[in-house]
């Protein structure tokens, strides 16, 4: 479990990092927290010639308020996201989901941007990003551009990032006062999600004024449960309404089959967990 040899560079600005990637060509890799990349390198599933470490780029870390959005630097660790008051007040769903990621060691090193760029369909932060209509700010050789979460995630471990692109930050529209719940289903505490449901709602009285629901690991990319959202909005959130709405959760999903779950079971879980997530979100 020793990685193949590679060159290592640790630039101090995003511009330098992009240049380093462009110089190194196709076989370069960006290193963020290393929690996914290092196992891949050690198992020699990938053998980049150059590793560009973003760890020394201060501008990629931290959370700031930009009016209608909370902006999270790509290199902000899970630990810092979990504890950030802006995230808590305006994107509670993200904080709740981040709480369930791995264990404290991993959360101290792993980053928000790394999780999104890695695009593991079982990763817990993709569905919340999608549900919250997050936008990815990307810098490449041609400058900066902004991509919606829906365009960003393309396939298993595949995003719209080109090899010389860096995910700089993520703009999360404020969902101030929304309650949220992330319902994660796995077999042991430190494991990835078999299925998970990210739900955030804005309630008015006992009625669902708005709802955003994202599903983890129900396809090669995160899935938005629009039919469930529609079935909830404008309704009083009683158990029967939630149950009936959750029945739509598996629509449009195409989950993978693995040792833990087949398609039928995953789709069944999606419905059960959606009901539970919405109920918990409504309860605040």
């Amino acid at each position, binding site marked *: 479990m020793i990685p193949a040899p590679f060159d290592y560079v640790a630039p101090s600005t995003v511009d330098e990092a992009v240049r380093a990637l462009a110089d190194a060509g196709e076989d370069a890799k960006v290193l963020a927290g290393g929690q996914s990349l290092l*196992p*891949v390198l050690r198992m020699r*599933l990938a053998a980049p010639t150059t590793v560009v470490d973003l760890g020394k780029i201060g501008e990629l870390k931290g959370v700031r308020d930009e009016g209608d959005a909370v902006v999270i630097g790509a290199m902000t660790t899970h630990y810092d996201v979990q504890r950030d008051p802006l995230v808590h007040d305006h994107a509670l769903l993200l904080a709740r989901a981040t709480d369930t990621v791995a264990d404290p060691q991993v959360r101290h090193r792993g980053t928000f941007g790394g999780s999104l760029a890695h695009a593991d369909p079982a990763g817990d932060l993709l569905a919340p990003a999608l549900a919250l209509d997050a936008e990815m700010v990307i810098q490449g050789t041609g400058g900066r551009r902004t991509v919606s979460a829906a365009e960003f995630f393309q396939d*298993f471990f595949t995003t719209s990032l080109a090899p010389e692109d860096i995910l700089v930050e993520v703009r999360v529209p404020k969902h101030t006062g929304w309650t949220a719940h992330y319902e994660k*289903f796995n077999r042991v505490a430190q494991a990835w999600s078999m299925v998970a449901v990210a739900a955030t709602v804005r309630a008015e009285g006992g009625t669902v004024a708005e709802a955003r629901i994202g599903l983890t690991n129900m396809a090669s990319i995160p899935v938005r449960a629009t039919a469930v959202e529609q079935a909830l909005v404008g309704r009083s959130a009683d158990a029967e309404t939630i149950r009936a709405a959750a029945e739509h959760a598996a629509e449009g999903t195409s989950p993978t089959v*693995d040792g833990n779950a087949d398609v039928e079971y995953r789709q069944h879980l999606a419905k059960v967990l959606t009901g539970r997530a919405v109920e918990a979100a409504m309860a605040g």
Partner: protein
Amino acid sequence: MTAMAEPEVGRARVRKEDERLITGRTRWTDNITLPGMVHMALLRSPTAHARITAMDTSAAKEMPGVIAVYTGDDLDPGGEVGMPNAWPITPDQKTPRRPMLAQGTVNFAGEAVAAVIARSAAEAEDALAEIDVDYEDLPVVLGLDNAVADGAPLVHEDMGTNKSAEWIFDSSQAGSGGDVQQAISSSDVVVTRRFRQQRLVPAFMEPRSVVVDPTAPQLTMWSATQVPHILKTMVAMTLGLPEHHVRVIAPDVGGGFGGKLAVTPEECAAVVVAQKLGKPVKWTESRSETMVSAHHGRDQMQDITISASRDGTITGLKVDLLADMGAYLGIVGGGVPVLGAFMFNAIYKIPAYRFSCTTVFTNTTLTDAYRGAGRPEATFAIERIMDELAAELGMDPMQLREKNWIAHDEFPYTTVSTLTYDSGNYEAATAKAMQLFDYDGLRREQAERRDRGDRVQLGIGISTFTEMCGLAPSRVLGSLDYGAGGWEHAAIRMLPTGKVEVVTGASPHGQGHETAWSQIVADQLGVGFDDIEILHGDTQSSHKGLDTYGSRSLTVGGIAVVKAAEKVIAKARKVAAHLMEASEDDLEFADGKFTVRGTDTSTAIQDIALAVFAAHDLPDGVEPTLDSEAVFDPENFSFPHGTHLCATEVDTETGQVRLRSYVCVDDIGKVINPLIVEGQMHGGLAQGIAQALYEEAVYDEFGTLTSGTFADYLVPSAMDLPSFTTDRTETAATSNPLGVKGVGEAGTIASTPAVVNAVVDAVRHRGVNDIEMPLSPMRVWRAVHKGDTAAGGPGAEAGGGLGSIDSAHGGAQ
């Protein structure tokens, strides 16, 4: 009179070894660096069964830092070296040769095919990719039923069969019971089940590692092994080295669980390579290598039939096993299921019993000893079928057990499988456990939840287990054709300053022998706990031993320590009498002092040690030493037992199982250190529960291990387990002077059926009467909703995490 010192035995001392282990201030095998040392990396077969048609190592030899590249033929041109199997279970057992590096064919994915030796570990690993091997695929044999089917392709073509041996015990032939077929056909009630013991990975914390230094006439080998003494003898025999030219050292070793009870191709290859090069060689495996190449455990198919009369009296028990050995036999090999043969009858009085076991080869990593070795499998099957029998009879499962178990006044009791249980009190342990658990209260809640049709149902699982441990009386091993004895050695050295060195042949790898042995010796000799050092794991200082496995260290090795201490005292008594000018018969020994009876004249053992060292004034004919050694060969096994009760909550909507409470009352006889016992119980329970709910080594149809990382092979953590309630009753073993029985495997053996029984109990009213292990949520959900007990089967692909990275990358290439 001064007050007696508080005895050390029974004190919950924090372990002596903890500080260095926890702070990393120790030296593991991989930390050893010798001048001129080179590194070995192994290329492993990606395919499960193939003929090697060509291998080109020339490019690898040109890689930076590479010193040599070896194939199987390079290391063993004559094709004569095979790893040892010490337990041929039948005279006609088929034992294929297991080479150091594959020669001709590869028989499982992960078998080593070539070795690169380089100046650094990284360079060695880099060069592996440059070795070009041509494989011609052969049909892959997977699954026990497939392997024994007529016309099945063969793992070892030349053997003509995939069956290694068939071992049978029949009580009507042994004279210990009746004819089982007759018992079954004349009984009111017969219950039959097929249980699958899934394959497990021992998952020790420290990966295997070996360093061989050939630069002196006596070769030194460091290995992360639990059996340095066995390794020394076996390496000498396997490679034809003079045994006195081999020294083996097991430094601190980070866990084994049976997984390091082995003599491995990697160890032997390191010796041969070191000798060829005349340089020290190190090999340390990666976790990925451990998963595919260190031996696995379990993997049996158990067909079990129990018969009883309507009142619940058991009349017969019949067991037919298929045991998957993988591609080769390891050192214990077929002996693992045979050990289980004696435990299916468990704590019950069973009048007729028949056991048969066929050991089978498949194209998988070999299986061998894993915590409990044969006994967890047996305990699972009997404790599971006791619940099924109770359900069939409409009896409370605990009542059924009570009706059939050996009563406390019936000991010693010779069982239908011919073992004599020296002692036990199942009633006492059960009474205590039932009370701690609130059995009646939980049964009430269970009934209420059923009536209400709650989403979450409650289940109660019982396991009243026993095990044979303290391996083993040498004569019994002889009668079973095992290749060695079961004694253990100890020596005590009394140093001139009054300090004590204790040498033990047991070889700790995490258990805490240093602490427990110090406590024993402190009481025996009346010296301070901190004045005692325990030496182990180096065949130079601890020249004799049979190492640590099978809960044997205390019950055999600890007794050897007691016997050696008795000899020290006997020698000291002579000298004390001489020094105090008294008769030996007038001396009392207590608290480390010899006192002349009725006087206050006394001499401390430390003073005697100094006097003996000086040797100026010893009685005639007395050797100037108190040092003593002893070898203890037990006359019987020991038989710990316990009552384990588990309450599970089963979410019927998702199939998720949550352990609500777990109570165990174990009777392990006298306890040396309750804290160590507690640690062994907690770890053991975690491992047994892991088999019930989480762990499984899964192969796909090509024979690739898909659960090859800890992202896919689910080892539970404290987060997944409840807070255990552990308690004890104490019925002293009569087979050894300390009254101890052993605790190393108890938790693992007992807990698996308790958990599965609890889950099945929770959903029995939904028509479920079995669910295959591990009880994954999908399996439980399917059992409840589709009546499918084997649901979900072993999946072909791993789920999430690194596994999914693996398949995604694999697909992209």
